[in-house]
């Protein structure tokens, strides 16, 4: 790991009070501007002196970006709403408890007080080779140091690797995908809304980005539709520590039952690929089936199809399979291997 220093490189700090003012700054400074939300990802980069933006746009003073509010039959969550606020909001607890659990699983209480949901879904990967500032693929170079025979890659990808094997570290992302959330993106050219699963960009598409955000764009809000409110939810995160750690693998599932059968399900996992993965094949298989061990077993086996473990992360294959089984069963009772 790079050495975190006390003094960051100098930059010009802007603290706009409105979205329009922030967008004007992002438009004016283009790729030299750095968007600062809660700062938990940003300050690592800046203190490591790996990223040296000339301009930082701090969003913390923009009231429009904060808070949870009803929208239609669902909710809209401002991108600068802290994870603690998400966890404590009564409507989130009542109707979207999976998001509450996912947000509560992130890091530690202090970090959740400062970290925002927009920052949690937009944070960069934690691959230490990349964050050490070496010229890997993701940093614009021509090698993945984590995908070499001698690399330390216990936390890296088993699915969807395309040159880069870094993983997305977000806890809330799979829950948002399971809830069929929409991400509201604004720029000076207007607003676009993308499905949560399309918000994340894999290395095959653009190896230097984690999200669909382009230069000059800002994630302003996350919308949760009513269609999955109050469903049967399942969220589980496996990490090396129970607090203050990124997921090795996490899983989020929303299930609507008709009697004893699964009418519909949305399920997503993270920590296994460069993007959170919606497991559409699993959703197809379980639809119309009983919520039992046989269905769970089939779902788990499908979830790991195509997995290619690296030198040190083969454990993620059975971990992913079992988490998906448990999510489909909707219980953590039996740990099958």
């Amino acid at each position: 790991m790079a050495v975190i220093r006390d003094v960051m490189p100098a930059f010009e700090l802007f603290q706009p009070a409105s979205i329009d003012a922030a967008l004007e700054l992002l438009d004016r400074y283009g790729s030299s501007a750095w968007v600062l939300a809660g700062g938990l990802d940003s300050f690592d980069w800046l203190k490591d002196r790996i990223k040296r933006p000339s301009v930082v746009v701090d969003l913390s003073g923009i009231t429009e970006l904060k808070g949870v509010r009803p929208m239609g039959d669902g909710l809209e969550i401002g991108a600068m709403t802290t994870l603690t606020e998400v966890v404590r909001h009564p409507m989130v607890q009542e109707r979207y408890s999976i998001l509450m659990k996912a947000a509560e699983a992130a890091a530690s209480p202090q970090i959740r007080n400062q970290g925002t949901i927009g920052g949690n879904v937009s944070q960069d990967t934690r691959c230490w080779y990349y964050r050490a500032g070496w010229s890997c693929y993701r940093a614009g170079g021509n090698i993945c140091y984590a995908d070499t025979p001698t690399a330390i890659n216990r936390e890296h990808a088993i699915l969807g690797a395309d040159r880069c094997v870094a993983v997305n570290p977000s806890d809330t992302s799979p829950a948002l995908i399971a809830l069929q959330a929409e991400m509201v993106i604004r720029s000076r050219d207007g607003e676009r809304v993308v499905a949560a699963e399309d918000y994340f960009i894999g290395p095959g598409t653009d190896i230097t980005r984690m999200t669909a955000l382009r230069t000059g764009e800002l994630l302003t809000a996350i919308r949760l539709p009513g269609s999955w409110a109050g469903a049967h939810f399942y969220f589980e995160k496996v990490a090396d520590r129970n607090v203050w750690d990124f997921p090795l693998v996490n899983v989020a599932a929303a299930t609507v039952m008709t009697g004893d059968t699964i009418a519909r399900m949305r399920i997503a996992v993270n920590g296994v690929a460069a993007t959170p993965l919606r497991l559409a094949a699993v959703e197809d298989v379980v639809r119309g089936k009983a919520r039992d061990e046989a269905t769970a077993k089939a779902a788990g086996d499908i979830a790991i199809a195509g997995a290619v473990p690296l030198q040190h992360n083969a454990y993620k294959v059975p971990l992913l399979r079992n988490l998906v089984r448990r999510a489909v069963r909707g219980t953590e009772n039996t740990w099958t291997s």
Partner: protein
Amino acid sequence: MDLLTWGRTPWGEWILTHISWDLFWASLFAGFAFLLAHGSYMLLSAHRKRDAIETDRLEAARTDLPARISRHSLAARLFHWVMAAAMFVLLFTAFLPIVGVQFAWVTWHWMAGLVLTASILFHIIHATVWMDFWSIWVGPKDMPELKAELLRELGHEVDGPKPGKYPLGNRLYHLAIVLSGLMVVTSGLFMMVRVRTPFFTRNPYLLDDAKWGFTYVAHGLAGVALVGLVMAHVYFAVRPEKWWITKSMILGWITRRQYLEHHDPQRWIAR
């Protein structure tokens, strides 16, 4: 404008990583500038072609020739079009992401690269064994033809040699394509060792970091050169006065008159 990009290895060494994509824009600009310049020149130039009366006389004297002169065999035409398709896939998958059209391009790129490689191997064997191998190459022996062609471009009547099977420009273009094509294919095959494919076990240590850098730079330079070269090729293929050549790459033949008008029957003996 930067020409090359550099990176730092874990051992603190600064190495080349690849070319600057500014060079792509430079190649694109150069390609368009050439098209504009050539198009303008063709409107204003006094290019001396064999006139109709002279061609009539030659045609009357060579009634022994068939009405259709075979110019490209089916195998040669198939090679050309397969290579062209592979080249377009390669260029689009390489450069569309750079201009902002994002998609998962790597698999398409190396698959097209393998098709290109296979087609080039086929072409080398086919041209060596079944074609007049030296008819496409240029060398010191072509200086008289170069001089004659330059004078014809200036409107002079010149007795110097006319082209054999391939016009001089065609041969020079082939040389440029050979150099850039071999460079891009060779470097590309090495680069494939670093990505996951069904054909190799990945081996990022095949070369050291510095050599990998040169490999990527070579691939990039050849790639951006091909942007300009392919633009020029397409441009000439659709120019009205060159359409007869393009048509021959589709149908395989040219007319007896086109043969006599544009070629030196002594240098390309039609059968």
